[in-house]
């Protein structure tokens, strides 16, 4: 049986607007080889999420492979359910609604589960290696200024120090550029809870940055 992407759906609200990935999803359902378009579109986002969560390049690649394979195999069971999502946002224009993708939310719910399993399976992985990764982002011949390097380093380190739930929300918001509603759907939490998570995360980062500056 199909499972709704968005858990709390009120009766009487049915999908009415176009999802931006509907065409690609329908094509991939008809012919699985067309899944490539969805794969290329979301590869960087999924890989980024896996990397920021697992903090290891190889683990992130493995997880990315599993995520897309599960998505490909599970695509016939995917059900586009924009009801609660769109009802909460009431897009003003067709262009607004075209920005929505329940497929992306569904894909990231797969990603969340795969990454969580990966973390459970390998608890021996050092959890501080995100700091090491920050070093990779600042080779002198690429990043143009020292200020830019400091910005990247500071951001990575501040995020690495956040509690897990806040870090996850920050990654989805800033790296994957999801809305509060999308993050709520991915993390299976209310929008209010996600709002507060993000707000507290930013305050923590601000304190962290102030500490570094002082």
């Amino acid at each position, binding site marked *: 049986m199909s499972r709704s992407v968005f858990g709390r759906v009120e009766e009487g609200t049915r999908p009415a607007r176009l999802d931006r990935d509907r065409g690609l999803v329908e094509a991939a359902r008809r012919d699985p080889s067309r899944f490539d378009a969805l794969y*290329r579109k979301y590869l960087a986002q999924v*890989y980024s999420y896996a990397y920021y969560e697992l903090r290891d*390049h190889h683990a*992130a690649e493995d997880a990315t492979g599993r995520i897309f394979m599960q998505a490909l195999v599970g695509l016939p069971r995917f059900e586009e359910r924009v009801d609660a999502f769109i009802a909460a946002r009431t897009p003003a224009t067709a262009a607004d609604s075209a920005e929505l993708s329940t497929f992306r939310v569904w894909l990231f719910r797969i990603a969340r589960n795969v990454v969580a399993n990966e973390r459970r399976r390998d608890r021996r992985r050092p959890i501080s290696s995100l700091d090491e990764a920050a070093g990779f982002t600042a080779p002198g011949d*690429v990043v143009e200024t020292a200020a830019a390097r400091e910005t*990247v380093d500071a951001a990575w380190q501040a995020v690495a120090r956040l509690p897990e739930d806040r870090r996850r929300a920050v990654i989805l918001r800033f790296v994957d550029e999801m809305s509060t509603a999308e993050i709520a759907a991915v993390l299976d939490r209310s929008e209010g809870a996600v709002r507060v998570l993000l*707000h507290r995360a930013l305050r923590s980062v601000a304190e962290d940055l102030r500490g570094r500056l002082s």
Partner: protein
Amino acid sequence: MLGEDSRDARRTERYLDGLLAADERHAPAVPVDADLDPGVELAAGRLRSGLVRLHPSFRFEESLATTLASAAIRLRAGLPVDDVTPASDLGRVAPFPGRSEYEVEGVAAAAGAATVAGPDAPAPRLQTGPAPAWRRLPEMAGHPSRPLLVGGVGVGVASAALSLGAYVAWRHSHPAAGRMGRAARAAHGRSGRSGQGRRTGVINGILGVVS
């Protein structure tokens, strides 16, 4: 009645929405609520520019595409997908049968060239740069100013650099003549000349990333 925390959280959300919208519009300034915590504004600014999106190596990308393509063929035939070649089996690059209209022609050629060097090619240092216009993915095209790391993190950048080099060479000698390219030019009313200018810009962008 909303608590103080909820009110602040909503204010923060509005500001973050504004940041995202500003990125899409390429607008440098974002309207700030006078009551917004300056610390939140500072943190959001740092995270906006510091949390880069990562792209795995192109070798991995093509390898996983091949794995998925094999799985797709098995799915279509009603076979189980358990024994599909894993993505980590590097070195074999095959264009996916159902290429997306979002891809620039030539990426497959570039990726194919990357495999010539083989998996033992030395990995140069990690490259960062502007979001790659040459990818032309809609989700990235909307944010050309966002930083992006290519080639995973510290690994596989050789293939990325080779891909870019091969793509530049290929693009110089092959104007976009594919079905999708023609359709896109027709839809946007571009003449060959303006298209040439755009391609030059793209190539310059690539050279900026590679050099």
